[in-house]
């Protein structure tokens, strides 16, 4: 409870410096997901694409059973296997997107925060432009123009995270580039590169990294949204896609809720863990609220 | 009420605390902000509570009024208002008293006035709440009060926001708010510290005039003895959560007993002195309220302290002068005091003329 409470930014100074049980629970879940994502093909799973037709059971979808833990979809494909495979794309995209965002956005942000001047003005304006599209709309616009492969979708979502991440990096850098130790370093004529790498980055990195998890949550949700709209990786098995498949017709949803509800559960728990862990980290490092 | 008050003003105190203790639970331990304070104010009288910041004077006023949060606070002792025990009342019960019977004027009018509410409304709302007036009546009354507190063109001011007023004006507004429902007890918490010197006098004038006209009692909290000098009947000097000296204003100024009070007196800015001349500051820090020094709490900073002071807490003793009590083993004028004073002056001379 204390974890929850302080994670909500509540004002108990005591709970602040502990990450708490909830945090580690979430980390545990995430670790499990990552493991699954990495090793799905090696796990003893049914094929996610095969159609397990069983005339004795009549027409698919088949309800959850010992044979199919999460039941099967309309095409008699194993929902459990598909859900686990779904973790792959969802997490890969989420992770690579936020990584790309942090590399590019972070660099630009630090640069403009440190050098100010035209770099700052240009990049800030670019950020504003990017932010003047609702993110999902921009994502749809871009995905509509490309072959939707794992790489491209990640890149698109990465692009989306540049602006918010960049702004943050810039703000953080601004704080530090005015600090004594940086000014001092400048006084003694240290090279900018040296100052950025040695003085700024270490200080900016900590708060930023605590936001990576939150950012990843956003990316995972965004990917899910695209997939749900049929705009994520083509032919790929993703949570969003699975949910859509199970809910496109209200009849399917009524007769076989398991098709969409198991993926929903996984997605929800994952996003929850990311948010929760991220939020705890943020309060732990005492970083200001941000909107990705 | 007048009859009772007439009686009250003569005989038993209008408001009094007996052994009032207010302690806060903190991560470090229990902080004794107010540690057994006993004071009385008679009707129409005003008491100045003086002390450095951290002496517990503000907490004292707030705990008398019952404004302190319930959790994390330990209260002991009693607060009696017109003979009734109010110390143990819940905020809900106090509401009828607040504004109607007691009011408070805060230190900084900028932060104490609602920035997004027209000042007029801030005055009228309590009128409408307590005296059940309708909007029109309330505005009328508010305007009158504004005139009383000498706010020029009140009708216009009523429709202005705090940020549109000068500091002095804001403070007048705050006083107006306090006076609105004609309370009988006013708490003024450093009412002038946030204002510049020229305005300070005006505000104090206004305050004392108001309580005099309305026959109110006032508890004026300040760190500046000079402020209370002209405007209060009695003075209580607080140090480390305790009252260390207490006397009618005149008596105190003529005949200081407590070296701490003396030090405070020396730190009063005087108009006679050129403003650049340094004031005699009291060396050292106010005591730690979580684990205060044994013996006299002022001893560590007291130039006249002796071993006794550090070992044994001085009792509250009555001075020869009327209604004058103090807590000191070696008060001003005592032989030990004089002896030490001579040494200090000699040392000052050798080190070249002191200040």
């Amino acid at each position: 409870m204390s974890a929850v409470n302080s994670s909500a930014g509540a004002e108990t100074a005591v709970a602040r410096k502990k990450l708490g049980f909830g945090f580690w629970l979430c980390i545990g879940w995430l670790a499990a997901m990552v493991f699954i994502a990495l090793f799905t093909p090696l796990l003893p799973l049914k094929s996610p694409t095969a159609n397990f037709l069983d005339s004795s059971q009549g027409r698919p979808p088949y309800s959850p059973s010992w044979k199919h833990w999460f039941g099967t979809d309309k095409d008699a494909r194993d929902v459990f296997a598909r859900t686990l495979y779904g973790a792959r794309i969802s997490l890969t995209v989420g992770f690579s997107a936020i990584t790309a965002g942090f590399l590019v956005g972070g660099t630009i942000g630090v640069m403009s925060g440190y050098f100010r001047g035209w770099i700052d003005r240009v990049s800030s304006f670019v950020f504003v432009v990017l932010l003047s599209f609702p993110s999902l709309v921009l994502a749809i616009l871009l995905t509509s123009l490309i072959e939707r492969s794992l790489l491209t979708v990640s890149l698109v979502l990465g692009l989306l995270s540049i602006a918010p991440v960049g702004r943050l990096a810039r703000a953080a850098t601004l704080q530090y580039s005015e600090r004594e130790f940086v000014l001092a370093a400048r006084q003694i004529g240290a090279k900018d590169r040296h100052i950025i790498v040695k003085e700024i980055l270490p200080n900016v990195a900590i708060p930023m990294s605590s936001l990576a998890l939150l950012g990843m949550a956003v990316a995972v949700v965004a990917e899910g949204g695209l997939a749900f709209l049929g705009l994520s990786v083509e032919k790929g098995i993703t949570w969003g896609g699975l949910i859509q498949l199970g809910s496109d017709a209200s009849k399917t949803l009524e007769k076989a809720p398991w098709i969409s509800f198991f993926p929903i559960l996984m997605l929800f728990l994952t996003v929850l863990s990311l948010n929760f862990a991220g939020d705890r980290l943020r309060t732990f490092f005492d970083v200001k609220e941000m909107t990705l | 009420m007048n009859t009772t008050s007439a009686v009250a003003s003569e005989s038993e105190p209008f408001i009094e605390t007996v052994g009032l203790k207010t302690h806060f639970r903190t991560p470090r331990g229990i902080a004794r902000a107010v540690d057994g304070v006993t004071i009385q104010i008679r009707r129409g009288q005003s008491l100045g509570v003086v002390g450095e910041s951290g002496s517990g004077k503000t907490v004292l006023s707030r705990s008398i009024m019952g404004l302190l949060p319930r959790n994390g606070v330990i209260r002991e002792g009693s607060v009696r208002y017109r003979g009734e025990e109010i110390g143990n009342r819940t905020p809900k019960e106090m509401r009828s008293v607040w504004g109607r019977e007691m009011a408070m004027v805060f230190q900084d009018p900028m932060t104490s006035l609602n920035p997004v509410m027209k000042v007029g409304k801030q005055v009228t709302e309590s009128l409408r709440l307590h005296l059940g007036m309708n909007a029109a009546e309330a505005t009328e009354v508010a305007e009158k009060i504004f005139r009383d507190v000498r706010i020029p063109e009140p009708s216009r001011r009523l429709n202005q926001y705090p940020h549109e007023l000068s500091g002095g004006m804001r403070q007048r507004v705050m006083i107006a708010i306090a006076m609105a429902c004609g309370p009988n007890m006013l708490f003024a918490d450093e009412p002038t510290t946030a204002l510049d010197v020229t305005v300070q006098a005006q505000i104090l004038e206004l305050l004392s005039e108001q309580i005099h006209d309305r026959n109110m009692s006032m508890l004026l909290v300040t760190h500046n003895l000079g402020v209370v000098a002209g405007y209060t009947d009695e003075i209580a000097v607080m140090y480390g959560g305790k009252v260390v000296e207490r006397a009618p204003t005149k008596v105190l100024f003529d005949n200081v007993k407590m070296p701490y009070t003396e030090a405070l007196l020396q730190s009063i800015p005087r108009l006679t002195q050129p403003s650049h001349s340094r004031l005699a500051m009291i060396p050292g820090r106010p005591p730690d309220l979580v684990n205060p020094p044994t013996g006299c709490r002022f001893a560590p900073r007291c130039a006249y302290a002796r071993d006794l002071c550090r070992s044994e807490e001085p009792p509250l003793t009555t001075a020869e002068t009327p209604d004058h009590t103090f807590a000191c083993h070696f008060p001003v004028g005592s032989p030990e005091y004089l002896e030490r004073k001579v040494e200090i002056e000699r040392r000052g001379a050798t080190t070249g003329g002191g200040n």
Partner: protein
Amino acid sequence: MVFTVACGGGGDDDGSTEPATSDGTDTTGGSAAPSEEGEPVVGGTLRVGLEADVDGLNPTASALAVSGLTMAQAVFDPLFTFATDGTVVPYLAESMTPSTDFTEWTLKLRAGVAFHDGTPFTVDAVIKQFEITRNDPLVGLAVRPYYPETDAVAKIDDLTMVFKPLEPSQYFPSALTAQLGYIASPTWLDALAADPTLEQQPVGTGPFQFDSRTEDSVTKFVRNEAWWGTDLVGPVYLDAIEFYPVPDADTRTELLLNGDLDIIHTTDTNQFETYREDTSLTLDISEDGEEYFLMINTAKAPFDDVRVRQALALATDRQGYYDLFNGGEGQLANQMFTPDSPYYNPDVTQEGNDPEGAAALVAEYCGENPVAEDGSALCTDGKVNMEYQWSGPSVLATRIADFYNENWSSLFNVTFDEKSQADHIQEAALGLYNVVGWRQFGAENPGDDRVWLECRNIGGISLNWPRYCSEERDALIKEIANPANPDERTGLLQQLVQNIHDSYAYIFMTHSSWAVVHTDKVHGQCDRIAPEGSPLVCSTNGRMYFHSTWLS
């Protein structure tokens, strides 16, 4: 379910030449005799749920799909129509008699008929319509055989005319039972030339006339008080009809069950159980209308090579498809005829479910490292590169695509290409595809399916979608049409079936089932008769007729 629109898209949307078909199941599946239904009531508005909206309702140009035909049938009357016994009977026409050698047909029109705009119905109207239709790039292809560029027709009097088809065909009348037979007001056709938007406001002779239309929302027709058919085939009961295009089959069903619609059509067999369970619904299925099949562009590499086409067929799990997407409804198709058809060729079966065979063929083909004209490789790491196109967006269509991909992916690198219905058909017509899902064939008179098959219909824009040309086949088709040898017809058709199979241009999957479903408020769907009295079918491959319909 956009899927139906999609492949239907293919089959239906060029409904221009799709003749009505029917068989016993229509009447048996149809609702009961009027006596049980009680006395017909005049009045009421019928709300119809269609699988798609139409671009326009212009018989001379619009590509009319089932939905289009259903709407058109209400405003227009076809010259001829099918009786339940499968014979072609006159409808708007009085009669049509061939010359002994079938080279000339004399058409007599019904007297005293007028279009909704008052224009009298005469030979001139018919001629104008055929003239205009012939010049249409797509629909024209279907007309030209019957209406050549030169000396196509001779006018005898206002109600009599003589057609001179390109070659003798006994099927001419049956070709006039659908889009080609819908005669529109010449006045309107003239206006149309000036203002194409009038396409949306058809003017015909039909039992209902145009009232209002909001594209993709609702189209409203009202009773034609002056309908010529009233005294011949019975009065028009409905005050009005409202057509709602609802592409998603589930939504359509939901609306029907909620009572927001009175009657719908669908090919989504998954829904059939639901309909049967609900006693308040009446279900009418045409079992062997069109065939659903995979259609292959034989003019474009890699499928210009018959081995690759065979391989694709062998790699396809037809049974699996049937189990998943038909689930007991309809039947697997081997050819364009059902086993109970007299023309069924028992020796022709559609191959499938033979991965090894397929693997062998692919290995052989890719062994030759073939390249396309643009030099790009046709095989990548031992797999043939291909594109599967369907019309969407549609979840079912995507599921089917996934299914095929699962079948083929071991031998083919399948690229998915989801297109809007309009683009889908156009690309097929222009031959810009590899493999598509399609629905077609099953004409009541098999000869009428010739337009899909003849060499002459290959060109920039083709109706011979697979662009497969075989003289032998064309000869067969001529013979079949030739009235001179009726008794050889069965044999010839069976040869045609064999020929089609050997081309490997089609992978026959299932005989698709069309269902028309209506609530118990709706009556008289099957009480239709022709002017000369023979009973008519209740519905035709999802096409609905409403002049005998009444609401309780």
